[in-house]
């Protein structure tokens, strides 16, 4: 009987600790980014959200066309990825925890998620039509995960191939 109680208590602690750790992550990340925006004199509001075991940080702008923030997204989101990586490192340094936080700027990732869904659907349709493997353009780890999930939801198989900046997804009808 005492065992049951103990495990119940442990579960509770685990459940309570995880979200607060993610919130701490969010605070550290927001401070890091906020000061950067301050120094660079860029207008932007920072939004923190904890959802599904991950911290999501968004830099948003009230202006319709905030050019400095667009520069922080960069070509194909390259600068956004760099800033996300540095922010994750800042969390690691400050808390000792490896972070899987996702940074977005003015909804770039959200818009890109819709695009990736369409890319996945097109690739699945093409693979079904031709019966051949379909190789996609190289993508970041996070984007590949979104595409893997979308392809799996559509009932096909996908794998990542290539190294480093050339790593990309291949969609196929069956497992290789």
């Amino acid at each position, binding site marked *: 009987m005492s065992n049951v109680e103990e495990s119940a208590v442990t579960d509770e602690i685990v459940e309570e600790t995880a979200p607060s750790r993610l919130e701490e992550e969010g605070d550290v990340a927001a401070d*890091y980014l906020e*000061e*950067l925006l301050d*120094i*660079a*004199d860029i207008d932007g509001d920072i939004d923190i959200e904890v959802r599904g075991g991950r911290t999501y940080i968004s830099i948003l702008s009230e202006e319709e066309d905030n050019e400095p923030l667009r*520069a*922080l997204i*960069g070509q194909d989101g*390259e*600068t956004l*990825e*760099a*800033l996300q*990586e*540095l922010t994750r*490192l*800042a969390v*690691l*340094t*400050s808390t000792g925890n490896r972070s899987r936080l996702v940074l977005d700027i003015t909804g770039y990732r959200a818009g890109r998620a819709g695009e990736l869904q369409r890319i996945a659907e097109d690739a699945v349709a093409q693979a079904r039509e031709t019966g051949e493997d379909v190789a996609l353009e190289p993508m970041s780890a996070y984007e590949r995960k979104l595409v893997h999930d979308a392809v799996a939801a559509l009932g096909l198989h996908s794998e990542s191939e290539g190294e480093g900046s050339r790593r990309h997804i291949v969609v196929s009808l069956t497992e290789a």
Partner: protein
Amino acid sequence: MLAEALDHLVRGIVDSPDDVTVELKSNRRGETLEVRVHPDDLGRVIGRQGRTAKALRTVVAALADGEPIRVDVVDTDRRR
């Protein structure tokens, strides 16, 4: 502004933030931001296969608004 921004970015990712210095050097090949950190933090600032140094360069380039600027992480140990 760029030196200050880079200084902030680096300070946030090292164990000894007080040992971070960023200096702007100009010569005929253009401008360079020289980053110095505590020797124990060097690996962290450079990162695996130079990944972190590359991320710092990418962000600085974005803030520089098209002006070419170099970012060098100086290995102070090696100079001594």
